[in-house]
């Protein structure tokens, strides 16, 4: 019923094969890249299907918006080449099952902030920045009713996304929301990139969290005191689905007087937190991920970062402890913005 809008001709005509040629985790030349992507498009086995770490980045690298990543994971599922071991996939799929009853639906009739599956992070949306903005998915016991499901791209289980997502969208829509500010990049990516790519209708307008924060900070501009911290940003995989909004990271830093450090693994060249890679079936995944994380954090450290800023709670969980050990403080973007307007987020000293 939902089919991926992928155009083989676009790949045939493509002269760069950026999707694979730029991949940080698969060493492949342009020529082979073309061959492999076409093999994938034809439903044939390809080394890429075995080696893909599911970092989402090729969605950004493809300048034709031809959805190479969605294609890869669809074919991984079709050809039964799961990137993760079976028990992790089962575990992950069960994680998103809503249980403990139905959520309470409050009619919003306007704009709302959607916490998705992060209802237990309400402490990150406190203070003036969020005044007057109603929130949906506030009950951790019911939060999987709002879980965008896109995580299952990492599991090569597009079928699960397609099966469950309509019900999630319906639940959100029942709140009668017009604009939905998505707390997590992943939800935003779901509703602005994945849904259109498979022809699933989204009856509300998603707003990127950082765009919201930026605009709100503009309104509160008078209250901003420069935070004067040297910051690095940990770009999450799902940010690759909305590269047009990535600019708000820098825009916010500029607005609140945070100094972005010069580093190698930044923007398009950003490194994955390794949250999903660590457990993958591909030989050496654990060790490779440990090396990747060290490389990422050393890069921040060498660049002089005092703070590593996050959008994604999963990245935060994966890297937080290592960062602290390296003397870099992990902070969510919203908390950093709160500091800039003189508020004291939970645990901030």
């Amino acid at each position, binding site marked *: 019923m939902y089919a991926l809008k992928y155009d083989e001709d676009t790949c045939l005509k493509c002269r760069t094969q950026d999707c694979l040629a730029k991949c940080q985790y698969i060493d492949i030349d342009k020529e082979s890249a073309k061959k492999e992507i076409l093999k994938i498009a034809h439903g044939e086995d390809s080394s890429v299907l075995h080696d893909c770490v599911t970092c989402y980045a090729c969605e950004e690298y493809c300048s034709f918006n031809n959805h190479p990543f969605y294609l890869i994971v669809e074919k991984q599922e079709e050809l039964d080449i799961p990137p993760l*071991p*079976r028990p992790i996939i*089962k*575990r992950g799929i*069960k994680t998103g099952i809503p249980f403990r009853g139905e959520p309470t639906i409050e009619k919003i009739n306007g704009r709302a902030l959607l916490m998705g599956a992060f209802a237990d992070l309400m402490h990150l949306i406190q203070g003036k920045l969020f005044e007057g903005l109603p929130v949906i998915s506030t009950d951790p016991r019911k939060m999987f009713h709002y879980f965008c499901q896109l995580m299952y791209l990492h599991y090569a289980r597009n079928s699960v996304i397609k099966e469950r997502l309509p019900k999630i969208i319906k639940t959100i829509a029942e709140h009668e929301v017009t604009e939905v500010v998505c707390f997590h990049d992943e939800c935003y990516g779901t509703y602005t990139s994945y849904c259109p790519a498979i022809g699933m209708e989204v009856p509300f307008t998603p707003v990127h969290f950082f765009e919201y924060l930026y605009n709100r900070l503009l309104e509160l501009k008078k209250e901003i005191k420069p935070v004067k911290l040297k910051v690095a940003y940990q770009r999450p995989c799902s940010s690759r689905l909305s590269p047009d909004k990535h600019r708000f990271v820098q825009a916010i830093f500029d607005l609140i007087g945070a100094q972005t450090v010069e580093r190698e693994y930044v923007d398009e060249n950003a490194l994955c937190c390794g949250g999903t890679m660590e*457990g993958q*079936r591909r030989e050496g*995944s*654990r*060790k490779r991920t440990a090396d990747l994380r060290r490389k990422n954090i050393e890069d921040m450290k060498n660049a002089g970062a005092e703070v590593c800023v996050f959008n994604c709670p999963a990245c935060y969980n994966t890297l937080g402890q290592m960062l602290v050990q390296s003397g870099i403080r992990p902070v969510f973007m919203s908390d950093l913005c709160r500091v800039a307007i003189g508020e004291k987020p939970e645990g901030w000293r």
Partner: protein
Amino acid sequence: MDSVYEALVEIVGPEHVSSQPEELFIYSWDLGTTEPHRPDYAVAPRTAEEIRKIVQLANKEKIPVVPLGGGLSLAGLAVPFKGGILLDLKRMDDIIEVNERARYALVECGVSQGKLTAYLERHHPHLTHSEPGAPPAATIAGNVVIHGQGDLAHPYGFNSDMINGLEVVTPTGEICQFGSCAIGAGWFTLHPLPDVGLFLGWTGTTGIITKVSLRLFPCKKIRGMAQFVVDDEDLVPEVFYKITHTQMVEDIMATSQAIPPFSSELHHFTINIAADSEKELEFKLEIVFDDTLGEYIHKGDGGYLGFIRGLERPQLSKTSDWRKGGGFEYVGSIMPIEQYPECYRRGKEISERHDIPYTVLARCIGTAHAMMFSWTYAFNRADPKTIEHAREALHETDDLALELGGTIWKPGLYGQRLVMEKLNPNTLELMRKIKQLLDPNGIMNPGNWEAQ
């Protein structure tokens, strides 16, 4: 005036003895499904000498004495089935000595797990003890007396294997010491004196332990927990076996439970790993997860879920509130690891029959010499029907544990009867003789281990 009450007041002082209905009510209850029985007196002694006097009084008056530690066995082991004097031992809570070089702690019987953990962290950060999965209010002595196991069970065995010395008040009121301490030496070994180990596993029916010397072990700078998951219960024994072969880890547990959904029908291993340096840690992770379990990962049969630094010690247990009912009880068994798949499958069936979401756990004891396998049944304290269901499920599980070739760990009265029915008759007879010899008036924790 009640002469026993007055005599108790004489021994422990008026504030530490009660025959008021409130104390008798509270001390009548176990936290599991066991029916309550009221004691006649609740007493909180401070010294072994006071206990000695209480026991002598009880012998004179022929009234039962029931010792209570943290009260967290959940199997009804300190319920005063025949009334008498309930001894709440938690006032005896001094950590008397920690010997850094001989690696032991000498503690009074009321010292809680939490207190020893906190004390070692603060004063002896490179030493640790094998902490059981019970709430921190559980006592050291209560745990060794029931043959408990803790988070060092894989390298070092049962907590009752970690005893370097004991002080015990016998049922006739003598204070005895066992181990090197008995000849006036330090509390550093239980061996090689003639073996008179008559107090462990007897659940307080042969005496009251008043002091324990417990072995401590090296505590490495980095301690953390890795997780590994499989979806086939038949793989669990070999995973246990392979991990234990590496001798690289501190604790290995496998769990499976119906709620939350992600844990249902999957088997999650938690594997504690400790290291003094990043180099040591990476070496151990590599040996365990790349070299040993890598084949499962690559084939797609097992998944590595990462390593988290820091152990939650003592553990916070929220088990009692899983169904907002305030209650749970479990059957623990000591079982060959090979039986994991059958324990899991049959346990799940019992749970389903009684409409209780299933919860099972296996902890490796020794180098896969055995496991403690537990089946947990939650109930709603406000709903007698669910308590009855849990009780039935527990009894069926006691039967199952023996059927599968295991022994029941810290059995309640029902389980004790089952064990005694199967027990070698000569052994049972010897137990009876020992009990008769030690406790001629049968005052100690009566009801427990009473051969028919």
